[in-house]
């Protein structure tokens, strides 16, 4: 079966008891057992829940894994991976990883005697050089946030495996519609299900999918022991979201591509960062690694200063000013004042996140409506005196 058909049917078989085409939401925390010392399929909801299991079965199929685990949030899923490590181990992560991942690695994981370092995953030689004999986990994200850098997942898998480390990929931005890291050699794929998988700005969740049964068992053990499971109602909403995942992602990517091309030709814009544009440094890898589209996240720098960019971000009517991404509603944010405000300015600039940068999460609205909205918001740029006036 093709991806879209599996997204609807795998894990969602008819309810055997009632025939319900949508299975019931199981809120029960405990399950009656056939006998003392005899265990049924489910015993206690932290160890396993039919509604969560259905979601996990779908995710495993979509990501070509042997099993999946659903967590209370994306961060809980990443934390689940880091608990595989022991004191003395080293983690190498790409420089473009999500800020919450950076915080987890540098403020939580390091306290367990685990060493953490970052290196640019887009520069494979530098990345490999940063590996140490005690490196056990390599963690990357593609496309990266907010500069939409593209990392070669297959190449990173080779590097990690050459040095005896696992490769984990945060696939939140690409989604399994476009990229399936396990097929490219990764060991663990991770999602903030809060984003495209849930897709409707109304579920907080996370997931891990793996290829190897033994690794699945270790992660399952840790999840059950520490307890960051996804609740049944959220599991249901996430499964419901996944039924339209491919439709949503493909449509959102189409609109993002058209917006990127339009912005690229507009002289109020200094530069557009979108892997679907031929001059994006990661375009060739993205074309190979992403199935027919380049994602629905898009960043651009206005030809203006911090205040001008702030003005633009505050002036859209359809794009709403908020962090997060991946939902049907389009969002806009200024990384310098919002998602990356905790960086000091020099560190932020060194990272390539300039004052005029704006990040869009393109939703499901009509292309022309979104274009018209950005166009009127960008009126601030000509008034502020942009590049083309200088």
């Amino acid at each position, binding site marked *: *079966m*093709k*991806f*879209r*058909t599996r997204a*609807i*049917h795998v894990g*969602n078989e*008819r309810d055997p008891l009632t*025939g319900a*085409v*949508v299975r019931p939401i199981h809120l029960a925390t405990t399950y009656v057992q056939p006998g003392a010392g005899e265990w049924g399929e489910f015993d206690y909801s932290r160890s396993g829940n039919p509604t969560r299991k259905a979601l996990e079965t779908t995710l495993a199929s979509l990501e070509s894994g042997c099993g999946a685990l659903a967590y209370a949030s994306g961060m809980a899923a990443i934390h689940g991976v880091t608990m595989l490590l022991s004191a003395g181990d080293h983690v190498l992560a790409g420089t473009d990883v999500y800020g919450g991942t950076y915080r987890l690695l540098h403020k939580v994981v390091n306290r367990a005697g685990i060493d953490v370092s970052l290196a640019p995953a887009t520069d494979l030689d530098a990345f490999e050089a940063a590996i140490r004999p005690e490196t056990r986990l390599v963690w990357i994200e593609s496309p990266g946030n907010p500069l939409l850098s593209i990392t070669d997942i297959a190449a990173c898998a080779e590097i990690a495996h050459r040095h005896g480390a696992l490769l984990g990929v945060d696939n939140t931005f690409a989604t399994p519609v476009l990229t399936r890291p396990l097929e490219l050699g990764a060991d663990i794929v991770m999602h903030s299900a809060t984003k495209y998988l849930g897709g*409707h*700005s*109304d579920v907080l969740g996370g997931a891990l999918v793996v290829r190897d049964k033994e690794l699945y068992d270790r992660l399952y053990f840790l999840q059950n022991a520490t307890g960051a499971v996804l609740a049944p109602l959220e599991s249901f*909403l996430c499964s*419901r979201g996944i*039924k*339209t995942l491919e*439709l*949503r992602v493909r*449509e959102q990517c189409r609109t993002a591509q058209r917006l990127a091309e339009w912005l690229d030709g507009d002289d109020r814009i200094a530069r557009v960062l979108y892997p679907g544009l031929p001059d994006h440094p990661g375009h060739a890898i993205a074309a190979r690694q992403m199935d027919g589209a380049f994602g629905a996240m898009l960043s651009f720098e206005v030809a203006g200063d911090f205040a001008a960019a702030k003005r633009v971000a*505050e002036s859209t*009517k*359809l794009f*709403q*000013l*908020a962090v*997060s991404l991946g*939902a*049907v*509603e389009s969002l806009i944010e200024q990384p310098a004042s919002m998602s990356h405000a905790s960086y000091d300015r020099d560190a932020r600039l060194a990272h390539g996140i300039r004052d005029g940068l704006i990040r869009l999460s393109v*939703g*499901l*609205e*009509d292309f*022309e*409506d*979104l274009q*018209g909205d950005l166009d009127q918001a960008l009126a601030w740029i000509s008034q502020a005196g942009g590049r083309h006036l200088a």
Partner: protein
Amino acid sequence: MTNRPRLPDPNGPELADSTLAVHAGEDRLKVGNAMTDAIFCSATYTFPDTQAAIDYATLKLPREEYGRYGNPTERVAERKLAALEGGEGAILYSTGMAAISSLLMATLQSGDEVVLFDECYHRTRELCKKHLGKFGVVTHQVPACDYERMEAAINERTRLLISESPTNPHLSVVDLERFASLGKKHQVATMIDATLATPYNVKPLSYGIDYVVHSCTKYLGGHNDLLGGAVIGSEQALEPVRALRGATGMCIGPHEVYLLLRGIKTFELRMLRHNENGLRVARFLEGHPRVEKVYYPGLESHRDHEVAKRTMRGYGGLITFLVKDADHVQTAAVVDATTIPRIGPSLGGVESLIEQPIVMSYHSFTKEQREAVGIRDNMIRLACGIENPEDLIADLKQALER
């Protein structure tokens, strides 16, 4: 930041359906600045003091009082549906049948008459003839799309003309302009059950129809996981209908309203896919030697294809077909051999469903009764979901060629 006007803003740009589906009817700044609407489970709403309650009652202030009269989450969904249909207002119900029966009860009284196109959801027919009949409402049934017979059945007691479009399961398509003008000419209200069309494919109010009703259980909810119904029209037309809901209480629950709102966000995408799957599967079936006939308004061979082409943007996911030289057992074998569609009634969800009308909706009918409404033993109704169309076609092919 001040709250911006709700979309569609009469002073703002006109917005496309996909944008309306995502945003229409929602406050731009919501409770708690949340991105999505909250689910208000509250059964009742409180007043700060007695004077406030008196002001509410005397000045008819726009606020909530008690759950049966309205709920904030429900109002968002009602505004969204109204925007998609191009109506002034919408009223939501616990089911599609609750919407239809409420509309009929609100607009008809003893001694009134209705004229009905005979091809329609059998419960609607039953409701008119059996239940309303008990209250002295007379129903005239005429063949679908026979406008002359319909006009001939109108008299001075006629209050309502009723049809579905497309009809279920024959997919006849009503010429809405003609239907509306019949109503206008004789000063009779018109109602179209547009469940199978959806506001993506056709907007009946734009042709002058007075009331559009939907089973939101179908495409609008879209995920086979909620029951709901809606009546949409002008505020004036809706007033008595709204008052009756307050009295009879056929309300939709807040959780279902939320799922409906969430379903509508992807409405256009889903409809595009249902339309594509419907047309591709119908064409495949029409070309298959084991298929005697296919009812699908997107096919040139359909009686109403011209009307459909003129008035519809797409033709939906529902297809009815006859298996050639098959009795009911051989027909059942085709149904049972499919692996992707589940066997069951209903339509409009992401999951495909398949059924043999004689064993589902029409099981309690005699053969003569079934034949009178065109339900044949070798008939299969397939509600295409949004799966990959090649998967659906391959599945039907193996089921037909077994």
